[in-house]
């Protein structure tokens, strides 16, 4: 149960923003964009719109 003492306190940046997560984020953003360029979302949508009976143990 939250109490009044549980209120989060934001402090000023204690350190600089780390570069590693941002670099990783950019890397995966590039992968994501590459997928869009190759029209992968339409394939994902096509799969997600159908039921894979084998995947849910039926058939």
């Amino acid at each position: 149960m939250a109490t009044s003492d549980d209120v989060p306190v934001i402090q000023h940046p204690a350190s600089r923003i780390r570069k590693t997560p941002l670099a990783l984020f950019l890397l995966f953003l590039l992968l994501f964009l590459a997928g869009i360029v190759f029209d992968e979302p339409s394939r994902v949508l096509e799969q997600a719109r159908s039921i894979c009976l084998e995947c849910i143990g039926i058939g």
Partner: protein
Amino acid sequence: MERLRTWIQALWFFLSNGYWAFPISGTFYQGPLKVLCSPGLNCYSCPAATTFCPIGSLQQLLLGVRLSLQAGQVYLGSYVLGCMGMLGSVFGRLICGWACPFGLFQDLLHRIPSPKYSVPQPLAWGKHLVLLLMVVVLPLTVLDDFNLGKPWFCAFLCPAGTLEAGIPMLLLMPDLRPVAGLLYLYKLTLLALVVFWSIASFRPFCRTLCPLGAFYGLFNRISLIRLKFNADNCTKCGACHRVCPVGIRVFESPNSGECIRCLRCSTEACQFDALSLEIAGHVLRMRPAPPVEPVQHMGRS
């Protein structure tokens, strides 16, 4: 904080499964939102699912990669992997603790009063094997006569699919019932085992078998949002370890790949401001309520 976490988990459950017209319409959601990635493990064959499951989609793309390349289409899973990686690099396993529908299911089961047991630490490696073998290697390499692989994790292991799709689909579509055979029975048994284990242990599936948890866990040490440990304030009293539901020695490994960021250590246990949440360099301190009795601690100079 625990109550807030449950509410946020419930919110994500309804965002990932927002199509509640299915009992009336007799169909499942097929709209454009299904191009969006569900952050947690959520079967997209669930009649109410409004997003795609990253693990299910990744397997489907990998198992058909040969055929798609032969057809001149480059479906290598980069869109899905990109979604998963972006989520992982920002949140790490915070997603497991706060946004996974199957995690919420296990959390609720664990509230059922019963004797509680810990999960043996070596079993934690299981989820990495599942990710490597059942999600990547086997769908890519074990092929049928049509040059297609199988979605091994979904077909043989995923209890979320049985719970969210297998059972509702058989209730919704009686025509499918004769098709359900031994595989369905096996998956029901597996789901029952996970249910009983979840009552006795905290989130056993997440900790031992979930490939999505294994993937996000790889980011825990470096994600933009992570725990910040202040060694100068730590008295090594062990309160954080005692309260941790996954048994991490927080003062030794605050950003362990097993941590699901429930934040109990910083909000309920640590009285010395040794643990806080770091969000892109900003420190968010969660002050716990002051102790009723003085805390017994060792070695504080």
